[in-house]
């Protein structure tokens, strides 16, 4: 690595007043032609490019990003990482990602601060209990660490939760995945960008895709705000804007793009040392290394590309937070923001070829895409390079909406995304 990061390089550079750090990535103009172009410079897109270069030896490739890399949902999410999904297909996908997370800082030589502080999912009614136990059993048999906790064990693991049985929806237990946790979202985008750039990938920011050129059923290239880029393979990882790109190619996807909001409190000293998710009352909370409580809110019911949701969603979210954590009533909301999430009817993603040759889509992650970033990139790279899916993403094809073979994660269990 041209510019290896370590405590020693920090000390060395301190002597030269940090004047000699190299660029983390170049700022190239697009070439006329690439072997493949990834549309979307978020974590998933950059990871895709990284693995295309690293594992499939495709070096003449580019990532085009309409704004700045990591500026979409990568930089807006609450960074929860877990793999305790119900269905085998989902468990396979997300645990593949989790395993990469576990060595990602070293692989990228970039500290993505993957912090395995555990993720707890709470049950608040008897059906929650059945669903979460079902999931725990399935996880265990799939080799995913997950245990069922009784209410007193929940309290022991996270003492600030109100486990009184007199509250409106008392905690009846929960599941815990200890390998799960959080990571530093920006670092993931930056780390992958740096790694991809090092292998020759062109990362082109401020370059918006305006059209997809086809010859019959085969792609020929992209019209962008920086001119036409010829390529035979286009991998679209545009999250909330996936449908917009699909429409350019004359495709319709089973997606709806909706606002998802999140907020942070002012920073305080450590008060909650794990991630707690509660589906029944819609409260998701963790604490960042900086000390902010990081709280995920729900999605609105309508399509919107404004990156703004409605305030009542935030109100509902904090209502639930105070139900479970009454001690946070005097804490203050510092920032609130929204992103655009593209949601599939079965709450599972699409990592798939399309009916157009050379056009691939990685989308539909809904509210839970961040956790999959490394796995998604790896599997999408495999799909693009080989023109067929890896066995781990075979179930996540577009055709499942025709055959009916859905991977229905929200119907299946109280799984929050």
């Amino acid at each position, binding site marked *: 690595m041209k510019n290896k990061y370590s405590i020693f390089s920090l000390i060395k550079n301190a002597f030269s007043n940090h004047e000699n750090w190299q660029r983390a990535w170049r700022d190239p103009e697009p070439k006329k032609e690439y072997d493949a172009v990834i549309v979307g410079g978020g974590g998933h897109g950059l990871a895709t490019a990284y693995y295309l270069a690293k594992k499939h030896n495709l070096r003449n490739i580019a990532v085009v990003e309409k704004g700045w890399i990591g500026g979409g949902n990568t930089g807006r999410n609450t960074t929860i990482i877990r793999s305790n999904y119900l269905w085998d297909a989902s468990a396979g996908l997300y645990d593949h990602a989790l395993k990469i997370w576990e060595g990602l800082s070293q692989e990228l030589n970039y500290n993505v601060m993957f912090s395995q502080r555990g993720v707890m999912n709470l049950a608040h009614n008897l059906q929650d209990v059945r669903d979460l136990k079902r999931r725990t059993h399935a996880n265990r048999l799939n080799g995913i660490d997950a245990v069922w906790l009784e209410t007193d064990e929940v309290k022991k693991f996270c003492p600030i939760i109100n486990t009184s049985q007199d509250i409106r929806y008392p905690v009846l237990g929960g599941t815990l995945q200890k390998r799960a946790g959080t990571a530093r979202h920006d670092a993931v985008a930056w780390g992958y960008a740096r790694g991809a750039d090092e292998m020759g990938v062109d990362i082109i920011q401020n370059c918006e895709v305006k059209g997809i050129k086809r010859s019959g059923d085969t792609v020929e290239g992209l019209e962008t705000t920086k001119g036409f880029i010829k390529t035979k393979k286009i991998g679209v990882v545009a999250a909330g804007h996936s449908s917009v790109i699909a429409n350019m190619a004359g495709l319709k996807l*089973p997606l709806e*793009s909706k606002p998802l909001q999140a907020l942070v409190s002012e920073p305080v000293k450590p008060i909650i040392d794990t991630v707690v998710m509660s589906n029944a009352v819609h409260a998701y909370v963790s604490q960042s290394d900086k000390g902010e409580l990081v709280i995920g809110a729900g999605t609105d019911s309508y399509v919107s590309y404004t990156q703004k949701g*409605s305030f009542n969603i935030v109100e509902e979210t904090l209502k639930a937070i105070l139900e479970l954590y009454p001690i946070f009533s005097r804490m203050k909301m510092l920032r609130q923001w929204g992103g655009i999430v593209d949601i599939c009817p079965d709450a599972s993603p699409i990592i798939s070829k399309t009916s157009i040759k050379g056009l691939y889509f990685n989308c539909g992650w809904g509210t839970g895409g961040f956790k999959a970033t490394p796995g998604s990139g790896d599997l999408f790279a495999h799909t693009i390079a080989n023109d067929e899916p890896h066995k781990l993403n075979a179930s996540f094809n577009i055709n499942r*909406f025709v055959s009916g073979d859905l991977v229905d994660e929200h119907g299946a269990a109280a799984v929050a995304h």
Partner: protein
Amino acid sequence: MFLINCPYCGERDQSEFVSGGEAHIARPKQPTELNDDQWAEYLFMRKNIKGIQFERWNHAHGCRKWFNVARDTSNDKIEKIYKMGEQPPKL
């Protein structure tokens, strides 16, 4: 939080309404005549437009009537509200 002018009740806060997604996707009259692709098109595929989208809304916490809205999804501006069964406006 936008305001929606319910054609039956007048202007109300958006939180009183529920979105029903893209409008003018009529349920096929003869579903059994469709092949799997055509049925999937009806069931799942959506334009998901960035820009003016015709969509269905329900005044769930009010008169419970369904109606259509032409809304710009890039800024949430409502261009037109019209009743069920009416043709989408030219905008």
